[in-house]
């Protein structure tokens, strides 16, 4: 303490322009900033923070984008809420149920679906047979519940809702098929040959499906259009037929029946409240119109489309959590790196620190300065990381294509990862917490060196022996 005052006195005596203690402090601060600012090694810590930050943002965004895409694809394909009849039961008089549902403020539209499985023969001499999932649909009402019309290749831009009628040699029956039914994506590019797809429109095909009476029924129909949703699951093996045609084949004596009602909610309607409303309407309808027992009503599955995916999504979220944990732990190495770099600066600049302290800068100021530099390093690093992570995530499809073209390595295939394109939505929620965590991690790394700098004793360092 006495030494410090002594040095200050000497300096004051000798240098007139440092006339005040304030000027001494400013000089000290200037010197300190110069020592730290001029250190190229600080760029290394900024780069490390940026790299870790970008990596975590990319992983988190791609994963949440993927999870979001699954949720959205379920919404788009199934609507917001689905009423599923119990196994081996069907819902008759579904028009009345749909009218009751649509009368509610919570519900915008509803549509009936009759589902089954079958075997599709893709026409004369092709030798091409494949298992297919069949949905009996009403295209007009379906277009109100899902963006179905936008997924059709031929009728995409039509002003009228799509219809399912065809030429006479198929008894007027037409159907839509998923793009994967009529074409296979290229092994290298994973893209469909749209010439081949368009050529399949109009083709006559045979669909066989079993019935409860164990008598197979074959339906000949013309492909009226091809559905391309970009979701492998819905593109690979779906066949859509008019619901009345399918009902007539599968349940000839029961008239119009469905086994699923898909519902689109009104804008702003809460799914939880809407679910309660739908359950109430269904219970009323099943009891009064269908005469179902309470047990059968209880067996009816009424869920949001997101609840139906919940188990799978929970697994994906768990995997994302594990991956973030692993990368997070490894990124903790960045804290060590910043610690080492700042410690290196403190050790190699002990004399300078001693000089500025002797010029009047307090220990707290020196420590704070190092800590602030830690924050600044983290701030710049995380800012850079956010930019890199954002650019990479947004352009991930171009990067993937570039790798595919340059190295011939197709990393993303819809048959493996469900979607034709890699979901590239940046998850801003994770960007914020990763960015903030990076800033504090950098500051944490600088904490011990800051303390070490603050405790440098000028009298010990500056003595000459």
């Amino acid at each position, binding site marked *: 303490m006495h030494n410090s005052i002594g040095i200050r006195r000497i300096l004051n005596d000798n240098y007139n322009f440092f006339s005040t203690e304030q000027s001494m402090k400013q000089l000290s601060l200037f010197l300190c900033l110069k020592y730290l600012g001029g250190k190229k090694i600080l760029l290394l810590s900024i780069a490390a923070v940026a790299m870790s930050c970008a990596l975590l943002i990319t992983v988190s965004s791609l994963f949440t984008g993927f999870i979001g895409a699954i949720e959205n694809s379920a919404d788009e394909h199934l609507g917001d809420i689905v009423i599923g009849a119990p196994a*081996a039961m069907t819902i008759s008089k579904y028009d009345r149920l749909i009218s009751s549902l649509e009368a509610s403020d919570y519900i915008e539209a509803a549509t009936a679906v009759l589902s089954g499985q079958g*075997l599709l*023969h893709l026409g004369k001499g092709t030798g091409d*047979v494949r298992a297919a999932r069949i949905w009996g649909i009403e295209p007009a009402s379906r277009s109100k519940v899902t963006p179905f019309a936008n997924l059709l290749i031929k009728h995409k831009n039509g002003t009228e809702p799509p219809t399912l009628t065809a030429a006479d040699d198929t008894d007027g029956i037409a159907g839509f098929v998923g793009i994967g039914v009529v074409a296979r994506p290229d092994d290298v590019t994973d893209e469909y040959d749209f010439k081949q797809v368009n050529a399949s429109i109009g083709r006559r095909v045979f669909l*066989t499906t079993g019935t409860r009476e*164990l008598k197979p029924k074959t339906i000949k129909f013309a492909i009226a259009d091809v559905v391309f949703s970009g979701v492998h699951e819905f593109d690979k093996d779906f066949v859509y037929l008019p619901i009345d045609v399918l009902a007539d084949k599968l349940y000839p004596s029961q008239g119009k029946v469905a086994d699923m009602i898909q519902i689109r909610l009104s804008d702003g309607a809460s799914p939880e409240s809407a679910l309660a409303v739908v359950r109430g309407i269904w219970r009323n309808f099943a009891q009064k119109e269908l005469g179902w027992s309470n047990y059968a009503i209880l067996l009816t599955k009424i869920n949001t489309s997101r609840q139906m995916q919940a188990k799978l999504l929970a697994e994906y979220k768990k995997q994302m959590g*594990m991956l973030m944990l*692993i990368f997070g732990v490894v990124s903790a190495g960045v804290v060590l790196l910043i610690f*080492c770099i700042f410690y290196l600066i403190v050790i190699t600049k002990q004399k300078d620190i001693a000089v500025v302290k002797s010029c009047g800068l307090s220990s707290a100021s020196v420590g704070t300065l190092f800590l602030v530099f830690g924050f600044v390093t983290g701030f710049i690093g995380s800012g850079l990381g956010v930019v890199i992570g954002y650019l990479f995530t947004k352009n991930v499809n171009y990067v993937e294509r570039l790798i595919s073209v340059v190295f011939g*390595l197709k990393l993303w295939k819809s048959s493996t990862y469900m979607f034709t394109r890699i979901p590239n939505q940046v998850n801003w929620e994770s960007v914020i917490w990763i960015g903030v965590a990076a800033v504090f991690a950098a500051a944490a790394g600088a904490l011990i060196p800051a303390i070490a700098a603050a405790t440098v004793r000028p009298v010990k360092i500056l003595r000459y022996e």
Partner: protein
Amino acid sequence: MYKFILPLRYFLKRRITHLAAAAVALCVFIVVVVMTVMNGLVSEFKDKNHDFVGDCIVGTDSLVGFCYYEDFLSELQKHKFVQAASPVVKGFGLLTQPGTGQNIGVEIIGIEPVGFCEATKFAQTLYYHKDKPSDVFSPTYNPALAGCVVGIDMISGSRDGAGKYHHGPEPLQIELMIICFPLTARGALAKAGTDLVNSKTVYYSDDSHTGLVKVDARTIYLEFKLARELLGMAGATPRASAIHIKFAEGTRLKAGVGKIKKMWNDFAETYADRQYANLLKNVTVQSWLDYRRGSIAPMEKEQTMLILLFAMLGIITVFIIFVVFYMIISHKSKDIGILKSVGVSRIAVLQLFVVFAALVGTVGALTGAGAGCVFLAKINDMEDWLFERFGWQLWDRTVYAIGDIPNDIEWQVLAVIIGAAVLAALAGAFFPGLRGSSKQPVEVLQVSQL
């Protein structure tokens, strides 16, 4: 001697080096754990694919199949390097369980049980007929009935939350109806003008657990002749979809496949003037790896991506070592000056720091690897404990076809990881070492520098 004593002293005395070793250990620990689990999953998946199809497959993707397969089988059996070969028919069908009104589209695989079990490890996937696969299509409750084997995941409720499958002492008598389109050799519908399809009632006789999700969830195995009949491949010139081959022990995969390819080309040439020779043109000869490439490749790519990501993060460790060594060497100028002033060469000083870096890298890598091995040895116990206490599993076994978490350490992989860590330490220390070794005694031993 000083080349070993000094690094040891530095390592023991300078706490900052412990930090560098800890960084290496952390990195190695994570890489060992993640890579072992990932490698285990990939190699397990590959093995399952290999077990499912045998060593080599002569076959076609076309559902029409190809003719004259019996003649080629006879050819194959003449060669010693072919241990077993068995024909298979494949097609699609609709499976219905009477009374339920439920249909599912399935892949039909028609096999000759004895031959197929010799060519592949199909017998090991069975539950009731593991020891006597020849009877697999004879249901134990009534051997006179036509039996079938279904993929295990087609039986609902057979798997519990822990991923274990449960079976009764005997298979249940379940009646199933198979419907399929029989095709002619030209790919047309064989029963055009009638009801177009063939159907047959079969009875559940056993289930097959290959561990391959898509196979276990959508495949039904029928007796070869029955499947051939249903799919329209019987008749005067019978057809098959593939021949699965197992090579004799000691036969290298590439060499074996090469020989079969040559044999097939010769065979196709000899049969070029036959009526259905055009079907032979679609036939390919592939190793099991190529045949199942579509399933295996995505997992291998994910593994490669993970390695690249860890390599990127490993760079941080290199930087940490760089900084630590830079710091230590800056502080050891006096030592360097003294060593050089007593005649130690620049190379020898560099060697000293290289030994020091190797020591830091080795200690860090061995610590990380040791901790990783212990963690892996206990990983399944830990998961069981977490599942019992909190219902938490790394992978939900009702969703994924994964049994225990793979924890078999591949010593080659471990050696590569340790080696890479030591190299990373050497890389990180090289430039500071070079800088230190080039210091001049006259500069660093000046009184003003002391």
